[in-house]
């Protein structure tokens, strides 16, 4: 029972950064933009979030909040770069995303070495600690599994219905969905396609930044080079598996979170299985899921195609 509790709890914790990035990517892909750069945006968020918390450590409990804010901001700024090349210059989104990820890998590592040298990040950086929701955390089983986490976990799962409501029950959400299907059609009724896409990319970048900030600031404050280790790419797979729907994406994120949780558990058990197989698991899962469950017809029709208003 205790093991089950722990697995469920760590599933939620593992799913949180994936879900943050995936929710942003759902919006961006619904608007027709495939943003591979979220891996890099997450990494930027993770690094600058931690660095900020490190430098504002005297502010005690405010420091991680400022860190998280800066994490989102650095995701946003990185996404701004994506916007310049993908929307303004109408370059290929896959190549731009790859470039941005490379840039983030290089920049964070150069700065990491500059700031922390060979010693690694110190342990006394303020971070988001586990909080136990009053009353709720007292419920047997559920209390430990669902209601004792750091604050970002709760906020992230609260975001799912918000995004759902936005996409399906607001005028703007309707326009976002239309934008990914037939951008020209909505530009002829007076919407600004480039603006919609820009906002969606920026949103995705911010969310990826928060996801990265979670990695470096929640539960344990740490940054290591390339610490996202493909989580941004997994978020892409979650979007596809979740059929571009926020609630289904949430389910998919939980599945991958479970993958990470089991991985950690099995390692701790000291089972006679090499740890690399578990690290590989989420990526194999992605491949299996993509080849088994999703047809090509379900993606937004204009996904990945640069929009040229003069055509």
């Amino acid at each position, binding site marked *: 029972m205790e093991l089950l509790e722990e697995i469920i709890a760590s599933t939620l914790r593992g799913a949180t950064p994936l879900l943050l990035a995936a929710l942003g990517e759902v919006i961006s892909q619904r608007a027709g933009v495939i943003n591979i750069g979220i891996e890099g945006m997450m990494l930027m968020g993770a690094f600058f979030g931690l660095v900020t918390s490190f430098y504002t450590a005297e502010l005690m409990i405010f420091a991680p909040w400022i860190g998280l804010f800066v994490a989102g901001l650095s995701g946003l700024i990185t996404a701004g770069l994506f916007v310049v090349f993908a929307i303004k210059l109408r370059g290929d989104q896959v190549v731009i995303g790859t470039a941005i990820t490379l*840039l983030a890998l290089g920049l964070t590592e150069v700065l990491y070495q500059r700031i922390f040298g060979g010693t690694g990040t110190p342990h006394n950086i303020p971070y988001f600690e586990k909080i136990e929701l009053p009353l709720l955390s007292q419920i047997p089983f559920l209390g430990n599994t669902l209601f004792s986490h750091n604050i970002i976990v709760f906020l992230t799962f609260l975001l799912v219905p918000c995004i759902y409501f936005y996409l399906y029950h607001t005028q703007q959400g309707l326009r976002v969905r239309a934008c990914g299907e037939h951008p020209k059609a909505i530009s002829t009724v007076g919407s600004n396609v480039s603006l919609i896409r820009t906002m969606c990319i920026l949103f995705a970048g911010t969310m990826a930044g928060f996801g990265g900030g979670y990695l470096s600031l929640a539960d344990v404050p740490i940054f290591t080079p390339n610490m996202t280790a493909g989580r941004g790419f997994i978020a892409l797979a979650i979007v596809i598996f979740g059929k571009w729907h926020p609630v289904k994406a949430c389910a998919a994120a939980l599945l991958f979170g479970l993958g990470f949780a089991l991985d950690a558990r099995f390692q701790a058990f000291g089972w006679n299985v090499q740890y690399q197989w578990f690290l590989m698991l989420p*990526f194999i899962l992605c*491949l299996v899921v993509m080849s088994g469950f999703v047809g090509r017809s379900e993606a937004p029709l204009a996904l990945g195609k640069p929009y040229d208003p003069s055509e």
Partner: protein
Amino acid sequence: MQSTFNRLVITSALILSAAFLTNGFILVLCGYNPLQAYATGITGAFGSAHGLGETLVKSIPFLMTGLSVAIAFRCGIWNIGAEGQFLIGALAATWFGTKVAYLLPNISWVAIPLCMTIAILGGGIWGAIPGILKITRGVNEVISTIMLNYVALYFVSAMVDGGPLQEISRTGPQSDPIAKWVFLPRIFPSSRIHIGILIAILLAIILTFVLFRTSFGYQIRAVGEGASAAEASGISITLNTLRVFFLSGALAGLGGAIELMALAPQLTTTFSPGYGYTAIAVALLAKLNPLVTIASSLLFGALTMGSYAMQLNIGISNKVTWMMQAIILLFVIGSSSFHLITKRE
């Protein structure tokens, strides 16, 4: 033809200057002196016979993976998986070099081609997996190749760190050295330059000929530039896509094997510093032309060599090359978004 070439040289020069400026600006923000850094880098890459030789040596994996990416992109295949294919090629060569080679007579001209063939098959099959997934299940190759990169990375790690290919003494996360007679010969006694460079350049020439002068190359380009028109004319999309996925993987795989057989007699868990990702910048800077890829891979070899010098002398992380590569890539996109990249698809 002359003017196309001139234009390519001029744009490339502009792209590089802009990239160096931008990168320098970022270095300033990071608290480094870019002039000092670049001077160190240039001296490191070109300042001595040794540096020059190492620059050439370092450009070989870029050329191999760059060719792999160029041929795939020409066919409209977004293969981001050269990294994984490179690793699998090296893994296959390691298996051959540490396990099979000892069963064979120690004759280099038998062992080396065999070892390369195994790596070509390994990389090719690894490269064909996303092709098969794309054709039969409609899986987008961008995502699947990225996923396969991670699978390959952990697979290599599983093999040499605790797995069957780990060194017999089980001390470090690496394999035993491959058999001596599988080593690639060096060209000069005093330098690490090896015959891999000749193989890579020869392949670049052959691929250029294949792309622009043969029926197969014509079909590859037709599928890449206008799939539905090609299909209507009787060119098989499925067949060509699969062939190019394999070819692209094989080139990267061979690249991994060459790297292993010439320089590192052992496979480690950190064997590739991201050659497969850099390859995208290498190929795009060369406008997907295999011959021009020779030049762009030299540039990236020099960048790598320069970054080592910077790390050694100034203490800048050598990952500064990634930053530089990304900036070059972004400027390539910026300069060509009006003609090259938007025209595809």
